């Protein structure tokens, strides 16, 4: 017998979780199935809504006012500005560890690449790093962590014209950690003030770090470190460091595996749990039954095919990175339902010559109607009860626009709400 629910969400990233939470808040019985770790582990953990227009205009101060000017097929245009705002309000309600909701204006945050990027919401832990804040800044990196080279990032920020002085210093993380220690090892040591050996004496890692940071701070009132400051209790680690150092401490959003992304994922799963949802992870959805409606999908569990039935389905499997959109030498396709994905037959039309050119592949995905139902090549919904959310949607280049998180949250919110309403 099939496992039944009102709404079945396929995919556990930002879009899947947003739609599951939104559907659960509407009172539906929601189940979420997800395969591998979500791409949030590869994301910075910043929540962008819109940083640049498709024409490259930006950085935009107000992401909402640019929405009416976007191309017709852009997901934000399908939803409308108000829905995007509602979705962001839902995000603000369920994720209490983020800031930025006090204003419509984008923030600028330093990146590990030494630039600044526009974003709409940022974790508490990144807040003191705002680039519009004119207090001088000290960045500190660790010798064995080549992703964040503080002197280089500082020099680049200076070249970007930031309105403050910025210095970068590199130190050795206390204790004799292996040069390829994982970010979670740093995070755990700092969180537990775990023992490390410094000059033959055992010390707490956090205490020892404070001792190394203290002499580096001159007049700066804020210090930025790589995003390894704690895992489950990042706020506690930051508070402890700030109390000892007497300055504000922030994390610079990171490379994969990204702790800020993981923390956000954890927080959203908690929120979904609190809203009464169920989730299962580790196994892929591989096929389905149904003609005009999706009746049942099948999850592949150690070669058994387990049926899951629902009244409404949300496809939030991601884009090319998350494998919600796949390709071979001739085709681009959506692998579960084989929903139509528009693409040129010649794969040499899929990309631009310049590394940051206008890449058609960045826009690969399903094109939906205003209810977010994927459309077939003739423009009719593929299925009455299947909606799509997040990067599986085409019609936008999230990387160029800096709109990935916003599109996932807004389309997830909308798809989840419509699915729940329909199911009841």
């Amino acid at each position, binding site marked *: 017998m099939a496992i039944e629910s009102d709404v079945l969400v396929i995919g556990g990233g930002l879009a899947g979780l947003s739609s599951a939470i939104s559907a659960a808040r509407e009172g539906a019985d929601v189940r979420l199935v997800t395969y591998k770790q979500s791409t949030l582990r590869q994301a910075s953990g910043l929540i962008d809504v819109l940083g640049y227009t498709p024409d490259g205009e930006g950085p935009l101060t107000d992401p909402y006012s640019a929405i009416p000017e976007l191309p017709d097929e852009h997901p934000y245009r399908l939803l409308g500005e108000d829905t995007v705002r509602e979705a962001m309000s839902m995000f603000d309600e369920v994720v209490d560890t983020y*800031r930025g909701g006090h204003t419509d204006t984008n923030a600028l945050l330093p990146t590990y690449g030494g630039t600044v990027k526009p974003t709409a919401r940022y974790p508490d832990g990144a807040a003191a790093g705002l680039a519009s804040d004119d207090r001088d800044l000290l960045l500190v990196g660790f*010798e064995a962590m080549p992703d964040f080279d503080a002197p*280089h990032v500082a020099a680049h920020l200076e070249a970007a*014209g930031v309105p403050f002085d910025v210095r970068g210093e590199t130190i*050795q993380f206390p204790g004799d950690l292996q040069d390829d220690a994982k970010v979670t090892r740093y995070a755990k040591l700092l969180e537990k003030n775990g023992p490390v050996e410094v000059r033959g004496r055992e010390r707490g890692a956090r205490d020892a770090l404070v001792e190394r940071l203290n002499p580096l701070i001159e007049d700066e009132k804020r210090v930025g470190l790589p995003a390894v400051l704690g895992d489950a209790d990042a706020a506690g680690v930051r508070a402890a460091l700030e109390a000892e150092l*007497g300055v*504000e401490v922030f994390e610079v959003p990171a490379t994969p595996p990204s702790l800020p992304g993981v923390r956000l994922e954890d927080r959203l799963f908690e929120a979904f749990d609190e809203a009464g949802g169920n989730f299962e992870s580790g196994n892929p959805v591989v096929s389905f039954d149904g003609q005009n409606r999706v009746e049942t999908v099948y999850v592949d569990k150690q070669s058994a095919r387990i049926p899951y039935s629902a009244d409404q389905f949300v496809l939030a499997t991601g884009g*090319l990175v998350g494998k919600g959109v796949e390709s071979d030498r001739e085709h681009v396709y959506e692998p579960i339902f084989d929903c139509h994905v528009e693409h040129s037959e010649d794969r040499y039309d899929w990309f631009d010559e310049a590394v940051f050119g206008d890449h058609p592949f960045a826009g690969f995905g399903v094109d939906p109607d205003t209810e977010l139902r994927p459309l077939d090549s003739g423009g009719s919904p593929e299925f009455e009860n299947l909606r799509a959310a997040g990067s599986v949607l085409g019609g936008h280049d999230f990387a160029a626009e800096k709109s990935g998180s916003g599109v996932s949250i807004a389309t997830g919110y909308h798809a989840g709400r419509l699915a729940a309403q329909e199911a009841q």
Partner: protein
Amino acid sequence: MASTPHVVVIGGGSTGIGIARDLAMRDLDVTLVEQGNLTHGTTGRMHGLLHSGGRYAVSDQASAKECIQENRVLRDIASHCVEMTGGMFVKRPEDSEEYFQKKLDGCRECDIPAEVISGEEARKREPHLAKDIDKAIAVPDGAIDPFRLVVANAASAEQHGARIETHSPVTDLLIEDGEVVGVEVEHKSGPGIRVHGTEGGTEEIRADYVVNASGAWAGQIGDMADVDIEVRPSKGVMTIMNIRQVDTVINRCRPKGDADIVVPHETTAILGTTDEEVEDPEDYPEEQWEVDLMIDTLKELVPMLDEARTIRSFWGVRPLYEPPDVGSEDPTDITRDFFLLDHEERDDLPGMTSIVGGKFTTYRLMAEKISDHVCEQFGIERECRTADEPLPGSEDFSVLRDYMEEFGLRSPVGRRSVERLGSRADEVLTTDDPNPVICECEGVTRAEVQDAIEQSGSDLNAVRIRTRASMGNCQGGMCVHRLASELHEANVDGETFDETVAREAWDELLQERWKGQRHALWGQQLSQAMLNYALHATTQNRDNDPADGEPIDFAAFDAGADASGEPGGADVAADGGERDGY
């Protein structure tokens, strides 16, 4: 004439660098000039096959004999650049029995060790070979790293007093009284040790003799002296797989044709190739059909290639040459032999010889013959020593050591570093500082990257060819910014590189890595490309780097909500806005 003749060699590929080393070892005064990086032209764009000679055993036995001879020499003098994988000529049912026999006879006539094995035995050695392969001839083919080889030759040449100038294209030949007396080069601008002479300026380098070893560009150099050198550049594609589907070189045993070889190379396998004449060695079409042809034809030998992941494709041009009056229609008919064009004899222009044609495996032998010719011009008799003296990195080197203990590296990373560095491993990897992995795909650590920067300065592409950093699955997606940071932190003899230099080198490498990847954009590599794009554009915002663009009005952006209650919060600038999200 001076007792130490000064020779200018044009071209920093295997031939030019081999000549520079040879002449320097014979105590001549040598300057080598190269328009780009070392290996910029043909040498850096080959499949890395160390020929056994088997490939030429039917069509060109003189070349085949040279190949097996040099194959043995290189195993000796360049052991850290060579992996003796072994090779096979495999016969499919539709391939001719007669040719198989000719190939076998040819190998034996040329003293190439050759053994016939059954299809079953061939599949035992290479389990992914097609089930219907009849039989094969096993030969001592190998893989060789052309970058490492050329860099080692350059290092040796420098140790013997040679001056090596990269990024210095020849803009003119100096001709006085009907004789070539030197070259004029332009030093491309850009700070760092790659700049000599005047930055961005020109330099006249006077010489007693000039050797034109510029390969497919030889004709362009000839034009500067109004002499005709009819090089016929012929392009070939090579497609790189993300893993080694085979561990030995697989050749198809048939007369000639496109897409007939798979070479295991480091962590990858390289599929090759096509052979098509082009007009201009710098500018020719790179087309989809060529890539598809590699996969669709070679899957007849190794079926899993059909579904495998390719990480990029690249094209190279062969500097083919045939004496006037032969007139081959098809470039595959043109000999792979080399020709020494003494312009005094040929064009009544003393002071210069051009070297054209030839092939990578016999680069050392070619260099020896040309160096003999140069010495002859001066009536000097000095013995060539390049076949006996190991290259730097290959002296007294036995690979098996306890890397983890010795250098504090994880075993696979240590093994790969030591294999790349050969006998230089101690010198490079022994450090008291943390030595984290910079490129995870290829296991390249900070010490190795810093060593490469010491050799090549601000050019991250040159760092790449020395270390293999950014050449794995992710094609630099995860390490290009780290390499740029290593450059920013480097100190080469007191010289440092500022942020602008690091940024330019970073952009250049990112674009270079993109160039080849474009030919592999489907399946997993398209997914990887999207991830790279997202990391660079979304997470780093490198596509809108404010340092390269319009100034930003920082004050117009969110200055933060009131953060009171946080330590240090009293200093936070509040914008007075409402907080409605908490």
